[in-house]
């Protein structure tokens, strides 16, 4: 299989996809707690879908969004309300809810056109707070801060419960999202995004309509996030505004950054890394520390996480994808590797 670029080897993609769908069986054989691991992977999958959109917005177009959890919330609550209170079928909600979130993307896109840099970051942060508060305010539908019970997804007559089934549902869409993200990234739209990020004046001079593409970036990232929101709501069976806070938005940006900005595959790596780190590795480390130090503190988990983040940024600012690229290039050039490290 030949990709668009000469040296791109696409043979591994179908193998990877098969592996993704075989993974639950492998996990079941390996460990009795496989259900829990599937649950963690499901969470990661949902976040991957959102982060693809976020990367297109912040990584490719350079529009920093510190309030993206709001879009997830919009998608989740829209779907929950549509399906449970208005009887909309789940499959239809999968189309409508992302559109609602995309609409919200337009709404925040407007102010975003005028501001840039840190101002934009804070505007999106404010947007995150405002949306969350508005969800609480419309308590007639959203039940305020108390949280909503959400029904399980029903597709083609089957009700999808349990982490096992959710995995297949979610990862089907993960694959679709990643492919779609890559297609957008490598298309004219993606190039326009990158041009805007690198230099707005030059992009304008080259004939790119800034307003149109910026709004498009917000809309698309809203779509992805809304889609993730639908899956999130129905596989979690209970949503509440507690979850969609500024910390979650920051987590998303961290995942995109760690994976390597402006690389869709990087987004996948980064999201998986952070989610697995937070749910599997850090608790393991924490147990070890408890074993040695016998402290009561619950904050050791945050401490370890923060430290790892910090060290990562200092030593590896290019992200996981950057690391991967370096390794690949190193491998290819062997044995002609230059002496000094290339940064």
């Amino acid at each position, binding site marked *: 299989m030949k990709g668009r670029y000469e040296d791109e080897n696409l043979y591994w993609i179908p193998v990877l996809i098969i592996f993704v769908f075989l993974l639950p069986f492998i996990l079941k054989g390996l460990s009795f707690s496989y259900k829990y691991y599937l649950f963690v992977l499901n969470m990661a999958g949902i976040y991957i879908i959102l982060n693809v959109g976020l990367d297109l917005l912040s990584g490719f177009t350079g529009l920093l969004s510190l309030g993206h959890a709001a879009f997830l919330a919009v998608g989740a609550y829209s779907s929950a309300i549509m399906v449970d209170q208005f009887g909309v079928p789940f499959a239809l909600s999968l189309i409508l809810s992302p559109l609602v979130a995309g609409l919200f993307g337009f709404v925040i896109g407007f102010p975003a056109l005028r501001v840039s840099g840190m*101002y934009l970051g804070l505007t999106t942060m404010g947007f995150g*707070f405002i949306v969350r508060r508005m969800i609480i305010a419309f308590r007639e539908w959203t039940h305020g801060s108390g949280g909503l019970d959400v029904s399980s997804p029903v597709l083609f007559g089957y009700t999808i419960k349990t982490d096992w089934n959710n995995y297949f549902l979610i990862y089907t869409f993960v694959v679709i999202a990643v492919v779609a993200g890559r297609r957008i990234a490598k298309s004219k739209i993606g190039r326009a995004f990158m041009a805007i990020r690198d230099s707005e004046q030059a992009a304008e001079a080259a004939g790119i309509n800034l307003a149109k593409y910026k709004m498009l970036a917000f809309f698309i990232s809203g779509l992805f996030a809304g889609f993730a929101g639908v899956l999130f709501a129905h596989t979690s069976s209970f949503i509440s505004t507690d979850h969609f806070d500024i910390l979650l938005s*920051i987590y998303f940006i961290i995942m995109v950054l760690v994976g390597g900005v402006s690389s869709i595959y990087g987004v996948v790596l980064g999201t998986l890394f952070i989610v697995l780190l937070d749910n599997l590795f850090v608790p393991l480390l924490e147990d070890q520390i408890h074993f040695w130090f016998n402290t009561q503190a619950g904050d050791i988990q945050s401490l370890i996480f923060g430290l790892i983040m910090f060290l990562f940024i200092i030593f590896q600012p290019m992200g996981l994808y950057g690391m991967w690229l370096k390794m690949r290039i190193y491998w290819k050039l062997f044995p002609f590797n230059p002496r000094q490290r290339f940064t």
Partner: protein
Amino acid sequence: MTDLFSGLTQEIISGIALGSIYALIALGFTMIFKATEVVNFAQGELMMVGAYVNFFFVTTFLSAAGTPTAWTFLVALGGSMIFSVLFGYILDFIINRPLKDEPIFSVIMATLSLAIIIRAVVAIIAGPISLLPFSPFGDSAISFGNIVVSVLDLSIIGSAIGLVIIFYYIFHYTRWGIAMQATSEDPIAAQLMGIPIKRVYSLVWIFSALVATLSGILLAPRIALLDTTMGFLGLKAFPAAVLGGFGSIPGAIVGGVILGVIETVSMGTLSFHFQWIKEINDIIAWIVLIAVLMIKPDGLFGVEKVKKV
């Protein structure tokens, strides 16, 4: 009518006090940004550390001295100041050296992870039990006719004004102050003129830490229980700093005070007369921010930066 008037005046004064605290946090945050282009998301945590350290000093001196006097609080204040100087210096070391030329995203992430680390470390050292902060003035209040103002609020406003005057003097009439201004305007030109910018950076961080500690000490008695989530209150300082225009010191102060007043008035009189305002009380700062930015995208006092190609 006088009822409304006195209620409103009380709220405005209380709002100015709250706003002064936001202004102080915004000040520290803006100073760092002006000089080093670093957006310090850990500013709220610096404030929290200051509050905790001050609490620690006060309780140690109290157990040594027996009864609280003005001296215990003043000495504790001094101790906290010294600590924050050291703390600021260390932070500059951690942040600026390794991250000198990294893109802004990395620096933001670095300060964010630093915030997480600081919060976790304080929580581990201080233990999980919330602390009961002291107000050095107890609950005393002064009345002007119908209007009651707490002494604490007055001291907050007084300290803020005092600090602003001191900073103004430092920035405009001392060598180091002018050096800081020069470095923030153009680091390369400043270097060429012989200014040791690394030292200037350290100074900026130290100042920021000092200001943060002070705001923490002033804020603690107002919030009844002291715990490590205090740093989130610092988040409100961001709209304050941006409202006035990022990188503008008078802007940060004005922004902070405006936000404090708006918040307090909306929670009080406005909520009473317009019931729906209750729903947006806690986010009114953000709404105001976005509204202002739509009209003046660089903030109230921001100067539109000439974008270089």
